[in-house]
């Protein structure tokens, strides 16, 4: 059972999503505004947040930024907007994935599960701790330290870093990363990868513009190192 915080202003959608998820055995916390969502997040500590982008008052994007300022809870954007720019901005603001409404509860649940799995799957890898330059990647504790200080990473960022650093200097296409890290079986949105790489670089690189850890291989994808 997963505790899902649904931040959605439309009552029907809120009820529908809640019904669908409850039917699948999850617990839902329903709020209509970003402000209430932040309060509920602090009060109830949900496992995951479903966040509508079009909110009255504090926008969904702003809500996303504020959540990320203090919490690395998984966030899945629930957007009725097909405006691609909003989705990208949402991803850059720290969301882990997005679902375009209308979506069946199966699809929403599948996205949720994939995001939640990110934080737990890599624990079974053989190497438990590895050092890469200034980075210490701890696969058991699921944390990353830079110069000995813990780096706060969102679930996707952490999983992407774990995945790439597990095979240093090996190049992965964005499609491969989408399949492995986001569990998107369809031809996914490559901007998910790009936005996540951007966020990850801003947290672990000394100079995000000339990255050492997450390097771009033009025309192919990304690789970890060489340092």
């Amino acid at each position: 059972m997963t505790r899902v915080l649904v931040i959605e202003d439309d009552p029907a959608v809120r009820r529908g999503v809640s019904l669908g998820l409850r039917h699948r055995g999850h617990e839902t916390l329903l709020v209509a505004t970003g402000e209430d969502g932040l309060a509920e997040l602090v009060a109830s500590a949900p496992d995951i947040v479903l966040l509508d982008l079009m909110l009255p008052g504090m926008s969904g994007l702003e809500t996303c930024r504020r959540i990320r300022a203090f919490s690395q809870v998984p966030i899945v954007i629930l957007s009725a907007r097909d405006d691609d720019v909003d989705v990208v901005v949402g991803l850059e603001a720290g969301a882990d994935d997005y679902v375009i409404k209308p979506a069946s509860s199966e699809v929403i649940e599948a996205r949720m599960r994939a995001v939640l799995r990110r934080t737990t799957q890599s624990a079974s890898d053989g190497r438990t701790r590895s050092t890469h330059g200034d980075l210490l990647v701890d696969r058991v504790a699921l944390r990353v330290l830079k110069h000995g200080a813990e780096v706060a990473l969102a679930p996707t960022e952490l999983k992407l870093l774990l995945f790439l650093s597990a095979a240093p200097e090996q190049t992965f296409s964005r499609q491969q990363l989408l399949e492995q890290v986001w569990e998107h079986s369809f031809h996914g949105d490559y901007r998910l990868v790009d936005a996540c790489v951007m966020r990850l670089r801003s947290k672990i690189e000394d100079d995000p513009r000339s990255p050492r850890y997450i390097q771009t291989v033009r025309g192919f994808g990304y690789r970890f190192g060489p340092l």
Partner: protein
Amino acid sequence: MIRPSLVRGLRAQLVVAFLLVSVVSALTAAAFTFRQGQSAIVARAQADALRELRAHVAARVPDLPADPGAARLRTLAAQLERAGGARGWRTALSYRGGPLVTAGGQAPPLPAQLRAGAASAATALAQRFHHAGTPWLAVSLPVTAAARPSGRPPLVVFASFSLASQQRDVDALAAAARTGALPVVPASVVLALLAARRLLRPVRRLRSAAERVAGGSLDTRVTVTGDDELADLGRTFNTMAATLQADAEALRAVEARARRFAADVSHELRTPLAAMSAVTGVLDADAASGRLAPLTAEAVQLVSDETRKLTRLVEDLIEVSRFDAGAAVLNLDEVDVAELVAKTLALRHWQDRVGTDLPPGLRARLDPRRVDVVLANLVGNALRHGGPQVRVLVRVRTDAGRIVVTVSDDGPGIPDDLLPHVFDRFTKADTARARSDGSGLGLAIAAENARLHGGALTAANAPGGGAVLTLTLPRQTRDAAG
């Protein structure tokens, strides 16, 4: 340039017409003047000659005896010939119809007609004729006795003289007329060219304006000066262009409104559909659980199924309005085409029903999500409309820097009357099954996706039967979105 010869043609016609008119009028004037001058000169020569002859005859005939002999007559002729010295005429006399008596040895040239006429005429006669290559004038003067005014004149005086000097005058006249008429030709050509230029300038301006309008610049106007027919034409043209522009703008506005409306409706439908879509799972589970009354279960299942269809329709409508608004963007990536096709088939569990012929290692830069949508649509259509036993083949080839994907089946093919409309919105191949699984927008969206790549999608029937859909994509799609 639609017809550059138009102006040249009109100009040529104008010049020719102008030239003709001026030449004809110059020639007519010259000919008339010449004719008038010529007859005036000749008539004057004739009258002078007659008057002189009459005077000389009148002075000398009274001296003549009643029945003059040949010698007297010869003397008279000689006297008369001498009297007309300046004119140089030669005379002959005929007494009572007798033979001609001349002063010297040689008789003057006299036309036979004049002689015949003079025998019975009571008045003087004159006739022009040609003798030895020069024009001559012959006159006859009957001399009647005062006692017997009636009856045949006893004596007829003939005189003939050369008109050579008069002919020289006439020739000079003709030359003058010619030299007057000839410069008219170049002068009128120059004038005609100038007039044509002036006349055709507004025509040329109108033509290039009309070309611009035809090219789509409906804001084109011509500058109208003056108040002639061409100015009227220019004004009419401007009115026409303004009307066209207004109509086009109105049409565009209506179309934009209609499209915006469709987009707005789709977006408005999305929110309730989002609520409904989220609960279709609940409905499906309950309908299948057997706990509901059969009718209720059926109704619940219907609502659930139709919600899914409606959702797909609205999604497609939104996608179409995105294309209409020019808001569709390519997210390009370099991919292996064979992998992409295999993935599209595998994701939909079609790999066992669809044959493939894919070249390995073919890489292309395209938007994989959009190409996946196109392929899924083409293969899905083939499977749906080809019948239960249909065999579908996806074939990928390269041709001159382009990737050619053909999706063919051995089904009944596309009806001929439907073929030109398969990419139209809401065209459905199977009218008997008016509502199939598709939204009716699938092929339209597929075609738009192909166009967005700078490629094309075409439909045809194979010679041996079955439909063939061909998707052509550039290997290196340019990133229009920047």
